[in-house]
């Protein structure tokens, strides 16, 4: 499984791997917001948590359709499926490499972008923490969508339609942690729920996504 993780990260780092694409999209999206809503400091500060969460969510979506589709197209998914690595493990590794190459850069990138959106100073820690806990759920749920759409021609749009509704709970509680943190309210409840969503996704989705892959490989 480590070999697969190393390979996927290696591929993401090579030309055409798409590393940085999500981050660049995140940057542009959040840069556009002040142009859209005006440069009012207070307004921007109030909507910053929501904007950053939305931006992170959409950036995550960008690289999802490549997750299994590339391996399916060149035939290596067949070969991996007949290798000693269980498909559940493959799903877990794919989600982990997606998080390392997309989710983690977004978490780190959210700090300077929060500054640009006038996020209140005491909100930064909660913002980063909520993304750190929430983005693994985004990668896992996206992995399930990608496994479901593998083999579908032009599956990218279908994938977005399937995955975005599933992202709603993560978005609600993630953005709530960041918003409550920024306004100085207690964040305990949404933080626990966000953590719960992530843990449940990590525990259950490998089974569901592996079942989807098995059906799609036939």
């Amino acid at each position: 499984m480590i070999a697969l993780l190393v390979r996927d990260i290696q591929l993401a780092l090579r030309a055409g791997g798409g590393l940085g694409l999500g981050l660049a999209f995140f940057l542009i999206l959040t840069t556009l917001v002040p142009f859209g809503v005006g440069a009012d400091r207070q307004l921007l500060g109030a909507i910053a948590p929501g904007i950053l969460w939305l931006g992170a969510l959409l950036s995550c979506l960008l690289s999802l359709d490549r997750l299994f589709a590339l391996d399916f197209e060149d035939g290596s998914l067949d070969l991996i499926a007949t290798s000693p690595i269980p498909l559940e493990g493959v799903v877990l590794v794919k989600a982990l490499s997606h998080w390392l190459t997309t989710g983690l850069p977004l978490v780190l990138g959210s700090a300077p972008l929060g500054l640009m959106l006038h996020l209140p100073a005491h909100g930064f820690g909660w913002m980063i923490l909520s993304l750190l806990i929430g983005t693994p759920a985004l990668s896992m749920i996206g992995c399930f969508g990608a496994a479901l759409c593998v083999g579908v021609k032009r599956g990218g749009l279908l994938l977005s339609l399937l995955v975005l509704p599933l992202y709603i709970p993560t978005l609600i509680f993630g953005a709530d942690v960041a918003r409550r943190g920024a306004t100085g309210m207690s964040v305990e409840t949404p933080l626990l729920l966000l953590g719960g969503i992530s843990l449940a996704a990590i525990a259950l989705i490998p089974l569901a996504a592996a079942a989807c892959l098995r059906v799609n490989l036939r």
Partner: protein
Amino acid sequence: MTVIATDLVVARAGRVLLEHISFSLHPGNALVLKGANGIGKTTLLRGIAGLQPLMAGKLSVTDDSHVYAGHQDGHKAMLSVAENLTFWSRVFKGPPIERALEQFDLVALRNRLAGTLSAGQKRRLALARLCVTGRKVWILDEPTVSLDDAGVDLFSKTIDAHLAQGGSALISTHIDLGLKAPFDILDLSPFRATPRALAMDEAFL
């Protein structure tokens, strides 16, 4: 390590293709599948490899004894020849890649990106992969496609060596492989199923 198939039925896209297929494949032997295009060779091989369910019959295979190579090579274009092979060697915890590179005359190409290889070179890399898996039963779907005569020769020699070491191979092909080791031919034409649709939806099996 013996593969024993009894009365297999294979279906694809809701249609039964082949039925009553029985064979046994012993260590040191090769079984060559022949049959017209579309008869169901690939479906049968994928079924035996565990990629799709067999509709009926009994298949006895030792767990984790086989490796499958299909029509697509499965290389990553942005990884070099050596990196691609090393990946598979690590996944299967198999032998190091040096001998496999030599066996398929890939030493000079080891640092080339797999995406820049010719079709025949890619196929040689796909076959070299088999040698680094350390698996005993090779399930090969038209392995000689796009190989030149010298490539086919390298392939036959590798199969002969694999069989001599107690391995076995199940190969579908349209050409004469020129194997020296003992092999049986299974012509699939008599097993063609009478056209009928499947009663149930295979997607939900």
